[in-house]
Protein backbone atom coordinates (compact mmCIF):
# COMPACT_ATOMS: atom_id res chain seq x y z
CA UNK A 1 0.00 0.00 0.00
CA UNK A 2 1.15 3.53 -0.73
CA UNK A 3 1.38 5.68 2.39
CA UNK A 4 1.06 8.90 0.41
CA UNK A 5 -0.31 9.55 -3.06
CA UNK A 6 -0.88 12.70 -5.07
CA UNK A 7 -2.45 12.93 -8.49
CA UNK A 8 -2.30 16.18 -10.43
CA UNK A 9 -2.02 18.08 -7.16
CA UNK A 10 -2.21 21.80 -7.86
CA UNK A 11 -2.32 24.93 -5.75
CA UNK A 12 -2.95 28.25 -7.41
CA UNK A 13 -2.91 31.63 -5.71
CA UNK A 14 -4.12 34.79 -7.41
CA UNK A 15 -0.99 35.48 -9.40
CA UNK A 16 1.09 32.38 -8.79
CA UNK A 17 0.94 28.64 -9.25
CA UNK A 18 2.70 27.32 -6.16
CA UNK A 19 2.27 23.61 -6.96
CA UNK A 20 1.60 22.61 -10.54
CA UNK A 21 -0.01 19.22 -11.06
CA UNK A 22 2.41 17.00 -9.17
CA UNK A 23 2.10 13.22 -8.99
CA UNK A 24 3.62 11.31 -6.09
CA UNK A 25 3.58 7.79 -4.77
CA UNK A 26 5.36 7.14 -1.49
CA UNK A 27 5.51 3.57 -0.24
CA UNK A 28 5.00 2.58 3.38
CA UNK A 29 8.19 2.85 5.45
CA UNK A 30 9.94 4.89 2.78
CA UNK A 31 11.84 8.13 3.43
CA UNK A 32 10.92 10.40 0.56
CA UNK A 33 12.65 13.76 0.09
CA UNK A 34 11.16 16.74 -1.69
CA UNK A 35 14.17 18.71 -2.82
CA UNK A 36 14.08 22.18 -4.26
CA UNK A 37 15.20 25.76 -3.89
CA UNK A 38 13.21 28.23 -1.79
CA UNK A 39 9.83 28.86 -3.38
CA UNK A 40 9.85 25.63 -5.39
CA UNK A 41 6.54 24.56 -3.81
CA UNK A 42 7.77 21.96 -1.31
CA UNK A 43 6.06 23.47 1.75
CA UNK A 44 2.81 24.12 -0.16
CA UNK A 45 2.78 20.48 -1.27
CA UNK A 46 3.29 19.36 2.35
CA UNK A 47 0.54 21.74 3.52
CA UNK A 48 -1.92 20.07 1.14
CA UNK A 49 -0.83 16.58 2.20
CA UNK A 50 -1.31 17.51 5.87
CA UNK A 51 -4.80 19.04 5.40
CA UNK A 52 -3.46 22.55 6.09
CA UNK A 53 -4.33 23.80 2.64
CA UNK A 54 -6.98 22.76 0.11
CA UNK A 55 -5.76 21.84 -3.37
CA UNK A 56 -7.06 23.99 -6.22
CA UNK A 57 -7.28 20.81 -8.27
CA UNK A 58 -6.04 17.24 -8.11
CA UNK A 59 -6.23 14.84 -5.21
CA UNK A 60 -3.97 13.60 -2.44
CA UNK A 61 -4.28 10.64 -0.11
CA UNK A 62 -2.68 9.48 3.12
CA UNK A 63 -3.06 5.73 3.66
CA UNK A 64 -5.87 5.76 1.09
CA UNK A 65 -7.76 8.55 2.88
CA UNK A 66 -8.52 11.61 0.80
CA UNK A 67 -6.91 14.68 2.41
CA UNK A 68 -9.95 16.84 1.67
CA UNK A 69 -12.96 14.59 2.20
CA UNK A 70 -11.51 12.47 5.04
CA UNK A 71 -9.54 15.10 6.93
CA UNK A 72 -10.35 13.74 10.40
CA UNK A 73 -8.98 10.30 9.49
CA UNK A 74 -5.89 11.79 7.84
CA UNK A 75 -5.14 13.95 10.88
CA UNK A 76 -5.10 10.84 13.08
CA UNK A 77 -2.51 9.25 10.80
CA UNK A 78 -0.01 12.07 10.39
CA UNK A 79 2.52 14.01 12.42
CA UNK A 80 4.09 17.25 11.28
CA UNK A 81 7.13 19.21 12.28
CA UNK A 82 6.63 22.57 10.54
CA UNK A 83 9.41 24.69 9.07
CA UNK A 84 9.29 27.18 11.94
CA UNK A 85 9.85 25.62 15.31
CA UNK A 86 6.33 24.95 16.54
CA UNK A 87 6.66 24.50 20.28
CA UNK A 88 4.97 26.16 23.25
CA UNK A 89 7.75 28.46 24.40
CA UNK A 90 6.77 28.80 28.07
CA UNK A 91 6.28 25.07 28.56
CA UNK A 92 9.03 22.62 29.43
CA UNK A 93 10.09 19.83 27.08
CA UNK A 94 8.04 17.31 29.06
CA UNK A 95 5.01 19.61 29.19
CA UNK A 96 5.14 20.11 25.43
CA UNK A 97 5.15 16.36 24.88
CA UNK A 98 2.37 15.93 27.45
CA UNK A 99 0.27 18.50 25.58
CA UNK A 100 0.35 16.45 22.39
CA UNK A 101 -0.42 13.23 24.29
CA UNK A 102 -3.43 15.00 25.83
CA UNK A 103 -4.66 16.14 22.42
CA UNK A 104 -4.51 12.54 21.17
CA UNK A 105 -6.33 11.37 24.31
CA UNK A 106 -3.66 9.09 25.81
CA UNK A 107 -4.06 7.86 29.36
CA UNK A 108 -1.66 9.00 32.10
CA UNK A 109 0.27 5.73 31.99
CA UNK A 110 0.62 5.74 28.20
CA UNK A 111 1.64 9.42 28.29
CA UNK A 112 4.40 8.72 30.82
CA UNK A 113 5.62 5.77 28.78
CA UNK A 114 5.63 7.75 25.51
CA UNK A 115 7.41 10.73 27.05
CA UNK A 116 10.15 8.42 28.39
CA UNK A 117 10.46 6.82 24.97
CA UNK A 118 10.79 10.18 23.17
CA UNK A 119 13.19 11.54 25.78
CA UNK A 120 15.36 8.45 25.30
CA UNK A 121 15.16 8.45 21.49
CA UNK A 122 16.02 12.12 21.18
CA UNK A 123 18.44 12.07 24.16
CA UNK A 124 16.54 14.95 25.78
CA UNK A 125 17.04 13.82 29.38
CA UNK A 126 19.24 16.79 30.28
CA UNK A 127 16.71 19.34 28.99
CA UNK A 128 13.41 17.64 29.84
CA UNK A 129 12.61 20.16 32.56
CA UNK A 130 13.85 23.20 30.65
CA UNK A 131 11.39 25.63 29.13
CA UNK A 132 11.35 25.53 25.34
CA UNK A 133 12.27 29.22 25.03
CA UNK A 134 15.59 28.55 26.76
CA UNK A 135 16.59 25.75 24.34
CA UNK A 136 19.02 26.08 21.45
CA UNK A 137 17.76 25.79 17.86
CA UNK A 138 18.90 22.17 17.68
CA UNK A 139 17.06 21.13 20.83
CA UNK A 140 13.93 22.96 19.71
CA UNK A 141 13.94 21.09 16.40
CA UNK A 142 14.40 17.80 18.20
CA UNK A 143 11.50 18.66 20.49
CA UNK A 144 9.40 19.67 17.48
CA UNK A 145 10.06 16.32 15.80
CA UNK A 146 9.45 14.44 19.05
CA UNK A 147 6.08 16.22 19.33
CA UNK A 148 5.24 15.09 15.79
CA UNK A 149 6.34 11.54 16.52
CA UNK A 150 4.80 10.99 19.94
CA UNK A 151 1.34 10.29 18.49
CA UNK A 152 2.86 7.34 16.54
CA UNK A 153 1.89 8.67 13.12
CA UNK A 154 1.87 6.44 10.07
CA UNK A 155 3.36 9.31 8.08
CA UNK A 156 5.74 11.92 9.48
CA UNK A 157 6.18 15.20 7.61
CA UNK A 158 9.43 17.02 8.30
CA UNK A 159 9.45 20.43 6.67
CA UNK A 160 13.04 21.70 6.39
CA UNK A 161 13.98 20.09 9.73
CA UNK A 162 17.59 21.26 9.75
CA UNK A 163 17.09 24.76 8.37
CA UNK A 164 19.28 27.24 10.22
CA UNK A 165 21.02 24.62 12.36
CA UNK A 166 24.78 24.43 12.75
CA UNK A 167 26.61 21.46 11.26
CA UNK A 168 26.77 19.49 14.52
CA UNK A 169 23.11 19.97 15.36
CA UNK A 170 22.25 19.05 11.77
CA UNK A 171 24.24 15.81 11.91
CA UNK A 172 22.72 14.89 15.27
CA UNK A 173 19.25 15.39 13.84
CA UNK A 174 20.14 13.27 10.81
CA UNK A 175 21.14 10.41 13.08
CA UNK A 176 17.74 10.65 14.81
CA UNK A 177 15.95 10.59 11.44
CA UNK A 178 18.09 7.60 10.38
CA UNK A 179 16.90 5.74 13.47
CA UNK A 180 13.30 6.30 12.35
CA UNK A 181 13.89 5.06 8.82
CA UNK A 182 11.87 1.99 7.95
CA UNK A 183 9.73 2.29 11.08
CA UNK A 184 7.42 4.93 9.62
CA UNK A 185 6.94 6.71 6.33
CA UNK A 186 8.75 10.05 6.29
CA UNK A 187 8.26 12.92 3.86
CA UNK A 188 11.15 15.33 4.20
CA UNK A 189 11.44 18.67 2.48
CA UNK A 190 14.87 20.19 2.19
CA UNK A 191 17.09 22.32 0.03
CA UNK A 192 20.25 20.70 1.35
CA UNK A 193 21.57 18.18 -1.24
CA UNK A 194 23.69 16.39 1.35
CA UNK A 195 20.65 15.87 3.57
CA UNK A 196 18.54 14.32 0.81
CA UNK A 197 21.49 12.24 -0.42
CA UNK A 198 22.23 10.84 3.01
CA UNK A 199 18.71 10.24 4.29
CA UNK A 200 16.30 9.63 1.44
CA UNK A 201 15.31 6.34 -0.18
CA UNK A 202 13.81 8.28 -3.06
CA UNK A 203 14.02 11.93 -4.03
CA UNK A 204 11.76 14.26 -6.00
CA UNK A 205 13.33 17.44 -7.35
CA UNK A 206 10.93 20.36 -7.62
CA UNK A 207 11.25 23.50 -9.71
CA UNK A 208 8.58 26.19 -9.95
CA UNK A 209 5.89 23.97 -8.46
CA UNK A 210 6.60 21.03 -10.77
CA UNK A 211 8.42 17.78 -10.13
CA UNK A 212 11.27 17.69 -12.60
CA UNK A 213 12.39 14.20 -11.72
CA UNK A 214 11.85 11.59 -9.02
CA UNK A 215 13.51 8.34 -8.16
CA UNK A 216 16.40 6.87 -6.24
CA UNK A 217 19.71 8.71 -6.26
CA UNK A 218 21.15 6.33 -8.85
CA UNK A 219 18.07 6.75 -11.06
CA UNK A 220 18.38 10.53 -10.86
CA UNK A 221 22.11 10.33 -11.63
CA UNK A 222 21.38 8.11 -14.62
CA UNK A 223 18.68 10.44 -15.94
CA UNK A 224 20.87 13.51 -15.53
CA UNK A 225 24.03 11.84 -16.77
CA UNK A 226 25.92 13.34 -13.84
CA UNK A 227 27.45 11.98 -10.66
CA UNK A 228 26.19 13.05 -7.26
CA UNK A 229 22.93 14.76 -6.32
CA UNK A 230 24.29 18.29 -6.49
CA UNK A 231 25.55 17.91 -10.05
CA UNK A 232 22.31 16.20 -11.07
CA UNK A 233 20.29 18.96 -9.41
CA UNK A 234 22.21 21.65 -11.32
CA UNK A 235 21.70 19.75 -14.55
CA UNK A 236 17.92 19.61 -13.99
CA UNK A 237 17.87 23.21 -12.84
CA UNK A 238 19.45 24.30 -16.11
CA UNK A 239 17.01 22.19 -18.05
CA UNK A 240 13.83 23.11 -16.17
CA UNK A 241 14.55 26.07 -14.02
CA UNK A 242 14.04 29.62 -14.85
CA UNK A 243 14.76 29.96 -11.16
CA UNK A 244 18.02 31.08 -9.66
CA UNK A 245 19.81 28.49 -7.50
Amino acid at each position, binding site marked *: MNAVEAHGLTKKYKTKIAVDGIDLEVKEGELFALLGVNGAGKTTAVRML*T*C*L*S*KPTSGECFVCENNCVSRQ*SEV*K*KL*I*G*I*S*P*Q*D*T*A*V*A*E*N*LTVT*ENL*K*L*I*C*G*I*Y*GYSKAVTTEKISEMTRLFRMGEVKNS*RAKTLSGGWKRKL*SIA*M*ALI*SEPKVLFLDEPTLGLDVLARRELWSVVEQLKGRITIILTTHYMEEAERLADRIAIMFSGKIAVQGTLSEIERLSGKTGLEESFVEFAEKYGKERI
Partner: protein
Amino acid sequence: MNKILSFSKRNFLEMIRDPLSYLFCLGFPLVMLVVMTLVNDTIPEETGMTIFRIDSLSGGIAVFGMAFLMLFVCLTSAKDRAGAFLTRLYATPMKSGDFILGYTIPTFILAILQILITFSASFIISKTAGVEINVFGMFLACLALLPSAVMFISLGLLFGTLFSEKSAPGLCSVIISLGSFLGGIWFDVEKTGGILEIICNALPFYHSVNAARTAMKFSNECFEHLAITVCYALVVSIISVIVFKNKMKADISD
Protein backbone atom coordinates in the same frame (compact mmCIF):
# COMPACT_ATOMS: atom_id res chain seq x y z
CA MET B 1 -12.67 16.78 26.38
CA ASN B 2 -9.05 15.70 26.72
CA LYS B 3 -8.08 18.02 23.88
CA ILE B 4 -9.76 21.00 25.52
CA LEU B 5 -8.22 20.26 28.91
CA SER B 6 -4.74 19.79 27.50
CA PHE B 7 -4.88 22.97 25.44
CA SER B 8 -6.43 24.88 28.39
CA LYS B 9 -3.61 23.73 30.64
CA ARG B 10 -1.03 24.85 28.10
CA ASN B 11 -2.66 28.31 27.81
CA PHE B 12 -2.96 28.62 31.59
CA LEU B 13 0.74 27.86 32.00
CA GLU B 14 1.71 30.21 29.15
CA MET B 15 -0.16 33.05 30.82
CA ILE B 16 0.90 32.51 34.43
CA ARG B 17 4.54 32.06 33.41
CA ASP B 18 4.62 35.49 31.81
CA PRO B 19 5.82 37.89 34.54
CA LEU B 20 3.96 40.75 32.85
CA SER B 21 0.64 39.04 33.57
CA TYR B 22 1.26 39.45 37.32
CA LEU B 23 2.29 43.06 36.86
CA PHE B 24 -0.70 44.06 34.75
CA CYS B 25 -3.43 41.70 35.92
CA LEU B 26 -2.70 41.88 39.65
CA GLY B 27 -0.03 44.44 40.50
CA PHE B 28 -1.44 47.40 38.60
CA PRO B 29 -5.09 47.00 39.76
CA LEU B 30 -4.00 46.46 43.38
CA VAL B 31 -1.77 49.54 43.29
CA MET B 32 -4.69 51.56 41.88
CA LEU B 33 -6.90 50.22 44.67
CA VAL B 34 -4.46 51.48 47.31
CA VAL B 35 -3.68 54.77 45.54
CA MET B 36 -7.34 55.66 44.98
CA THR B 37 -8.16 54.78 48.60
CA LEU B 38 -5.46 57.26 49.64
CA VAL B 39 -6.94 59.82 47.21
CA ASN B 40 -10.35 59.20 48.76
CA ASP B 41 -8.92 60.10 52.20
CA THR B 42 -8.04 63.57 50.89
CA ILE B 43 -11.56 64.26 49.55
CA PRO B 44 -13.65 66.26 52.02
CA GLU B 45 -16.83 64.47 53.15
CA GLU B 46 -19.05 67.49 52.39
CA THR B 47 -18.40 67.05 48.63
CA GLY B 48 -20.47 63.86 48.80
CA MET B 49 -18.07 62.16 46.40
CA THR B 50 -17.99 58.44 47.12
CA ILE B 51 -16.57 57.14 43.84
CA PHE B 52 -13.19 56.29 45.38
CA ARG B 53 -14.62 54.80 48.59
CA ILE B 54 -13.55 51.17 48.77
CA ASP B 55 -17.12 49.82 48.51
CA SER B 56 -17.51 51.74 45.24
CA LEU B 57 -13.98 51.39 43.99
CA SER B 58 -13.49 47.62 44.27
CA GLY B 59 -16.04 46.71 41.56
CA GLY B 60 -14.48 49.21 39.16
CA ILE B 61 -10.94 48.03 39.85
CA ALA B 62 -12.02 44.41 39.31
CA VAL B 63 -13.36 45.37 35.86
CA PHE B 64 -10.15 47.35 35.19
CA GLY B 65 -8.09 44.24 36.04
CA MET B 66 -10.21 41.99 33.83
CA ALA B 67 -9.58 44.29 30.89
CA PHE B 68 -5.92 43.29 31.15
CA LEU B 69 -6.92 39.64 30.85
CA MET B 70 -8.38 40.58 27.48
CA LEU B 71 -4.89 41.75 26.52
CA PHE B 72 -3.31 38.45 27.60
CA VAL B 73 -5.74 36.13 25.84
CA CYS B 74 -5.38 38.35 22.79
CA LEU B 75 -1.58 38.16 22.93
CA THR B 76 -1.56 34.38 23.44
CA SER B 77 -3.86 33.68 20.50
CA ALA B 78 -2.17 36.24 18.20
CA LYS B 79 1.29 34.82 19.02
CA ASP B 80 0.09 31.26 18.38
CA ARG B 81 -1.22 32.32 14.99
CA ALA B 82 1.94 34.24 14.11
CA GLY B 83 4.22 31.26 14.81
CA ALA B 84 3.87 27.72 13.54
CA PHE B 85 2.36 26.44 16.79
CA LEU B 86 -1.25 26.68 15.61
CA THR B 87 -0.20 25.16 12.26
CA ARG B 88 0.99 22.10 14.15
CA LEU B 89 -2.22 21.91 16.15
CA TYR B 90 -4.39 22.45 13.05
CA ALA B 91 -2.87 19.22 11.72
CA THR B 92 -4.05 17.31 14.81
CA PRO B 93 -7.62 16.10 15.42
CA MET B 94 -8.43 19.38 17.31
CA LYS B 95 -11.57 21.23 16.15
CA SER B 96 -12.27 24.97 16.27
CA GLY B 97 -14.45 24.57 19.38
CA ASP B 98 -11.52 22.90 21.20
CA PHE B 99 -9.35 25.94 20.45
CA ILE B 100 -12.00 28.47 21.52
CA LEU B 101 -12.70 26.69 24.82
CA GLY B 102 -8.98 26.06 25.30
CA TYR B 103 -8.35 29.79 25.28
CA THR B 104 -11.50 30.72 27.22
CA ILE B 105 -11.45 28.27 30.14
CA PRO B 106 -7.99 29.12 31.58
CA THR B 107 -8.58 32.85 31.18
CA PHE B 108 -11.93 32.51 32.92
CA ILE B 109 -10.22 30.72 35.83
CA LEU B 110 -7.65 33.53 35.97
CA ALA B 111 -10.49 36.08 35.95
CA ILE B 112 -12.12 34.35 38.95
CA LEU B 113 -8.79 34.34 40.82
CA GLN B 114 -8.24 37.98 39.93
CA ILE B 115 -11.72 38.99 41.15
CA LEU B 116 -11.23 37.06 44.41
CA ILE B 117 -7.82 38.66 45.03
CA THR B 118 -9.16 42.16 44.24
CA PHE B 119 -12.09 41.77 46.64
CA SER B 120 -9.91 40.20 49.33
CA ALA B 121 -7.58 43.20 49.09
CA SER B 122 -10.64 45.48 49.18
CA PHE B 123 -11.84 43.75 52.35
CA ILE B 124 -8.46 44.28 54.04
CA ILE B 125 -8.39 47.94 52.91
CA SER B 126 -11.97 48.47 54.14
CA LYS B 127 -10.93 47.26 57.60
CA THR B 128 -7.94 49.61 57.73
CA ALA B 129 -9.99 52.51 56.27
CA GLY B 130 -12.85 51.86 58.69
CA VAL B 131 -15.44 51.42 55.93
CA GLU B 132 -18.18 48.85 56.46
CA ILE B 133 -18.31 46.24 53.69
CA ASN B 134 -20.81 43.40 53.60
CA VAL B 135 -19.08 40.12 52.80
CA PHE B 136 -22.19 38.62 51.21
CA GLY B 137 -22.50 41.77 49.08
CA MET B 138 -18.91 41.20 47.95
CA PHE B 139 -19.76 37.64 47.04
CA LEU B 140 -22.72 38.84 44.94
CA ALA B 141 -20.46 41.43 43.27
CA CYS B 142 -18.01 38.65 42.36
CA LEU B 143 -20.85 36.71 40.71
CA ALA B 144 -22.10 39.83 38.93
CA LEU B 145 -18.66 40.25 37.37
CA LEU B 146 -18.59 36.84 35.69
CA PRO B 147 -20.48 37.92 32.52
CA SER B 148 -18.01 40.79 32.18
CA ALA B 149 -15.16 38.27 32.38
CA VAL B 150 -16.72 36.34 29.48
CA MET B 151 -17.10 39.57 27.53
CA PHE B 152 -13.47 40.65 28.00
CA ILE B 153 -12.14 37.16 27.18
CA SER B 154 -14.26 37.04 24.01
CA LEU B 155 -13.04 40.51 23.02
CA GLY B 156 -9.44 39.35 23.54
CA LEU B 157 -9.99 36.25 21.43
CA LEU B 158 -11.68 38.33 18.73
CA PHE B 159 -8.80 40.82 18.51
CA GLY B 160 -6.20 38.03 18.71
CA THR B 161 -7.91 36.30 15.79
CA LEU B 162 -8.35 39.38 13.63
CA PHE B 163 -5.11 41.23 14.25
CA SER B 164 -1.41 40.48 14.35
CA GLU B 165 0.58 40.13 17.57
CA LYS B 166 1.95 43.62 16.90
CA SER B 167 -1.29 45.48 16.28
CA ALA B 168 -3.62 43.56 18.62
CA PRO B 169 -2.03 44.75 21.92
CA GLY B 170 -2.35 48.39 20.79
CA LEU B 171 -6.03 47.91 20.14
CA CYS B 172 -6.47 46.21 23.53
CA SER B 173 -4.75 49.15 25.22
CA VAL B 174 -7.29 51.49 23.61
CA ILE B 175 -10.14 49.31 24.92
CA ILE B 176 -8.57 49.18 28.40
CA SER B 177 -8.24 52.98 28.51
CA LEU B 178 -11.71 53.58 27.06
CA GLY B 179 -13.23 50.89 29.26
CA SER B 180 -11.82 52.31 32.48
CA PHE B 181 -12.74 55.87 31.48
CA LEU B 182 -16.23 55.23 30.10
CA GLY B 183 -16.89 52.59 32.75
CA GLY B 184 -17.10 55.35 35.34
CA ILE B 185 -14.31 53.90 37.46
CA TRP B 186 -12.55 57.24 37.89
CA PHE B 187 -15.52 59.67 37.84
CA ASP B 188 -19.22 59.76 38.59
CA VAL B 189 -21.01 59.29 35.26
CA GLU B 190 -24.45 60.34 36.61
CA LYS B 191 -23.11 63.64 37.86
CA THR B 192 -21.42 64.34 34.53
CA GLY B 193 -24.57 63.94 32.44
CA GLY B 194 -24.85 65.02 28.80
CA ILE B 195 -23.37 63.19 25.86
CA LEU B 196 -20.75 61.47 28.02
CA GLU B 197 -23.45 59.82 30.12
CA ILE B 198 -25.26 58.70 26.96
CA ILE B 199 -22.04 57.16 25.58
CA CYS B 200 -21.25 55.46 28.90
CA ASN B 201 -24.77 54.01 29.03
CA ALA B 202 -24.54 52.74 25.47
CA LEU B 203 -21.31 50.85 26.08
CA PRO B 204 -20.95 47.75 28.29
CA PHE B 205 -18.16 48.95 30.61
CA TYR B 206 -20.30 51.26 32.76
CA HIS B 207 -22.82 48.46 33.23
CA SER B 208 -20.08 45.96 34.11
CA VAL B 209 -18.80 48.27 36.84
CA ASN B 210 -22.25 49.12 38.13
CA ALA B 211 -23.43 45.51 38.10
CA ALA B 212 -20.72 44.84 40.70
CA ARG B 213 -21.26 48.10 42.64
CA THR B 214 -25.03 47.68 42.91
CA ALA B 215 -24.77 43.95 43.71
CA MET B 216 -22.52 44.87 46.61
CA LYS B 217 -25.24 47.20 47.92
CA PHE B 218 -28.03 44.61 47.35
CA SER B 219 -29.69 47.10 44.99
CA ASN B 220 -32.30 45.95 42.45
CA GLU B 221 -30.57 48.17 39.88
CA CYS B 222 -28.05 45.36 39.66
CA PHE B 223 -30.39 43.27 37.47
CA GLU B 224 -30.66 45.97 34.80
CA HIS B 225 -26.88 46.44 34.61
CA LEU B 226 -26.35 42.69 34.70
CA ALA B 227 -28.86 42.09 31.89
CA ILE B 228 -27.08 44.62 29.65
CA THR B 229 -23.67 43.08 30.47
CA VAL B 230 -24.96 39.56 29.76
CA CYS B 231 -26.34 40.73 26.39
CA TYR B 232 -23.00 42.31 25.46
CA ALA B 233 -21.13 39.20 26.63
CA LEU B 234 -23.39 36.98 24.51
CA VAL B 235 -23.07 39.13 21.40
CA VAL B 236 -19.27 39.47 21.67
CA SER B 237 -18.91 35.72 22.39
CA ILE B 238 -21.02 34.77 19.36
CA ILE B 239 -19.07 37.16 17.12
CA SER B 240 -15.68 35.89 18.38
CA VAL B 241 -16.72 32.23 17.87
CA ILE B 242 -17.91 32.95 14.31
CA VAL B 243 -14.78 34.96 13.48
CA PHE B 244 -12.42 32.35 14.97
CA LYS B 245 -14.13 29.49 13.11
CA ASN B 246 -14.06 31.40 9.81
CA LYS B 247 -10.45 32.42 10.28
CA MET B 248 -9.43 28.83 11.04
CA LYS B 249 -11.34 27.62 7.98
CA ALA B 250 -9.64 30.29 5.86
CA ASP B 251 -6.21 29.43 7.32
CA ILE B 252 -6.52 25.78 6.38
CA SER B 253 -8.00 26.30 2.94
CA ASP B 254 -5.49 28.94 1.83
